[in-house]
């Protein structure tokens, strides 16, 4: 075992000498982003054209990995934190300001954070099958007051999933102190609480769940990739909850200039143009032609709800406890 490790160490030491001399920019990203089906590889190729560097996109569970590695992390840049966990990430003190001009952003909310740079966004929504749900809810109130057997919903666990956390904060933004009552009404309609978006969405596509907590942009995938227009996202009159994916550069990066250039690249036309069908969300700097017409035509949220990162962090633990209690009955 130890010999194998030593051998691995030698191989590693030899590796940079064998490769060309280009610097390597290491980018941590969630697996759905870094993998074959996400925009990670195209993003790397796009940036490599201009940076004179190699980009290594590493698919990991970003927040726990950064917390575990601390200032020894080999990452130069991370992508994928939502606003709801930004505060937790910021508190590590590991990240440097992005130095980007935020006036270019075309988000439905005002973004002021100087460290985390949003590069795409969407809103939480319950996605349903139009052929099965004849009376889709038009508001949260509709959803809560529907008979318990009207539809069964798959949601995500706020303790293990960022979409689950967004749902928690959505309910909190709409109902505030009345959130426990809202959860009590919602709980009987919840088919199950899945650990993550993938499992919940699978239950929906298999027909087990009539609705799933996903995003306003989810139907775009089915319409464009599968030529299937039976899936729709319910737009609620109280508003849908804003969800942005952000990127940040590490203070301890060995390539600060490259990292900065990478932040610039994230808002460039090249990358912003690939976000729509690459990550099935809206670009943070929208320009004409970035989205296919079918995507452009999706119904948009009437009102966007959004909690500041500080407020989200303060609400998180008590809101999880409220949620947990509602499901104990």
């Amino acid at each position, binding site marked *: 075992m130890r010999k194998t490790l030593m051998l691995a160490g030698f191989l590693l030491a030899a590796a940079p000498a064998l490769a060309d001399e280009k610097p390597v920019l290491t980018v941590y990203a969630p*697996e*759905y982003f870094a993998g074959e089906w996400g925009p990670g590889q195209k993003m790397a190729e796009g940036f490599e054209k201009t940076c004179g560097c190699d980009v290594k996109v*590493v*698919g990991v569970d970003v*927040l726990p990995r950064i917390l575990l590695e601390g200032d020894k992390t080999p990452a130069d840049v991370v992508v994928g934190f939502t606003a709801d966990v930004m505060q937790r990430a910021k508190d590590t003190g590991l990240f440097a300001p992005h130095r980007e001009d935020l006036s270019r952003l075309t988000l439905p909310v005002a973004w002021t954070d100087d460290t985390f740079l949003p590069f795409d966004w969407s809103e939480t929504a319950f996605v349903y099958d139009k052929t099965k749900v004849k009376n889709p809810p038009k508001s949260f109130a509709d959803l809560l007051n529907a008979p318990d057997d009207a539809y069964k919903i798959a949601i995500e666990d706020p303790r293990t999933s960022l979409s689950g956390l967004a749902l928690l904060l959505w309910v909190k933004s709409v109902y505030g102190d009345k959130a426990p009552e809202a959860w009590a009404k919602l709980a009987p309609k919840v*088919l*199950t*609480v899945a*650990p993550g978006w993938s499992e919940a969405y699978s239950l929906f596509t298999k027909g087990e769940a009539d609705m799933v907590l996903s995003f306003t942009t989810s139907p775009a995938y*089915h319409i464009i990739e599968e030529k299937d227009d039976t899936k729709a996202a319910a737009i609620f009159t109280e508003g849908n909850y804003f969800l942005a994916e952000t990127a940040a550069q590490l203070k301890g990066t060995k390539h600060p200039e490259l990292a900065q250039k990478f932040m610039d690249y994230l808002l460039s036309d090249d990358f912003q143009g690939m976000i729509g069908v690459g990550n099935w969300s809206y670009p943070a700097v929208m320009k004409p032609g970035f989205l296919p017409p079918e995507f452009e035509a999706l119904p948009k949220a009437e009102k966007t709800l959004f909690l500041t990162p500080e407020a989200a962090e303060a609400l998180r633990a008590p809101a999880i406890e409220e949620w947990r209690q509602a499901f104990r009955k």
Partner: protein
Amino acid sequence: MSGPRIEARIPVAFPLAGGSAALIVAALILVPLGAVTMTAGGLRAPSPADLEALWFTLWQAAVSAAVSCALAVPAARALNRRRFPGRTALVALMGAPFVLPSIVAVTALLTVFGRKGLVNEALGALGLPSVGIYGAHGVILAHVFFNLPLAVRMILHGWQAIPSERMRLAASLGFGPAEVARHLERPMLRQVLPGAFLAIFLVCLTSFAVALILGGGPRATTLELAIFQAFRYDADLGRAAALALAQVAVTLIALGLAAAVTAPPAFGAGLDRAGERLIPTGRLRTAKDATVIALIAVFLLVPLATVLTGGAGQIPRLPASVWHATAVSLAVAAGSTVLTVALALTLATAGRKWAEAAGMLPMAVSSLVFGTGLFIVLRPLAPPAMLALPVTLIANALMSLPFALRVLLPEAKRLAADYDRLAASLGLRSWARLRFLTLPRLARPLGFAAGLAAAFSMGDLGVITLFSDGHQQTLPMAIYAMMGSYHQNLAAGAATVLTAITLGLFYGLDRIGRRSDDM
């Protein structure tokens, strides 16, 4: 160890190997656990939610184990009594749910028992109300589905291990079923059942994916899930370590209890002739056995068939990356199977309680905490991505070890009890003993153990996710990646591939073992 004591004992095959293997396994498990605790700077007191998780974990594990064992006894008895075409294939296939990757198994169960599953469709067609699977009972149903095969196999082995001389004696004494039960079957069950119960209890103790999806909500939180939650948002190692230690404690207590109630082998040595069974005749008994076998086969095999057929149409569309991931998974499975079998054989033939205990340790530890501990220990030495595959190989081998050991132990003990004196008098030692006694005599459980190890390794989605940078991908990871990006159909196709390979390996290795035993 001093000279005279060696004289007094029957020597084992490789006296030092058992100790070294035990030490390596214990270190591989305990060092990562220690590393997590140390990095956390201590343990964190559990919250009320954690205590609820502990209670739910114990409760569901005990109920799942009890139900599985209760159903397995009649099934194993019927299978032992009856011979029918396809019996061998059925026994082998029945092991399948136990080795199904959980990511696939949950889907299979939902296709049958889900809200829109076969059972509810049938009930609906008959105008009957539907049955819900989500909740604590869903978790138990799933655990019984997974573990009933394990219990049936362990108990069936017990039945087959009753020496045929005893059966002949019983026949010549004119024993009816009641006497056979009292004098032969009950002592055998006393010996086999605690082990089966314990094995299932322990499997369910660390249950994760099943409880996540079928549990219905936070009430069905297991310890392993609580550990995942502790990591996911906060990387709260203190809480994770405290929960992991609670798991270890529960496992050790369960192991102790099982050791206390397990009876020693009661039959003595036979001449090892096969094929002697007491077959109760009469239409009623035959019909009863046939019904039991049919029910169990339907319960276990129909969900399996749905996975195999569900995604088959997608297979031609699978991208090259899936086939690459398949090759990686196969290579890792091959390595970890060899390692598991070598470790299990060494520990099982050491003839020492502590060797057994060390072999059971991997079961006690949360694979998430274990993986994180390894990550903490190894990170300063090499980049995690470089270690992803070797570490996964070792981790998979360790995670399969308790099962392999459980399968080998009863027969290794019987082998020692029956042949130690003969081997000693012949001066059969080390390699010769391994070659001419141990391997041939243990071929059947070894094949089964290898099949289990290979299948577990194929389906594992644990440690690799902590080390991989996304480029070294196993098949379950590839499936998960497709599920995470709207490609649910392709994921179903890859799940069919995974299931077919897993079953092929399990069935093939088990068959090799049984073939060698028959020779």
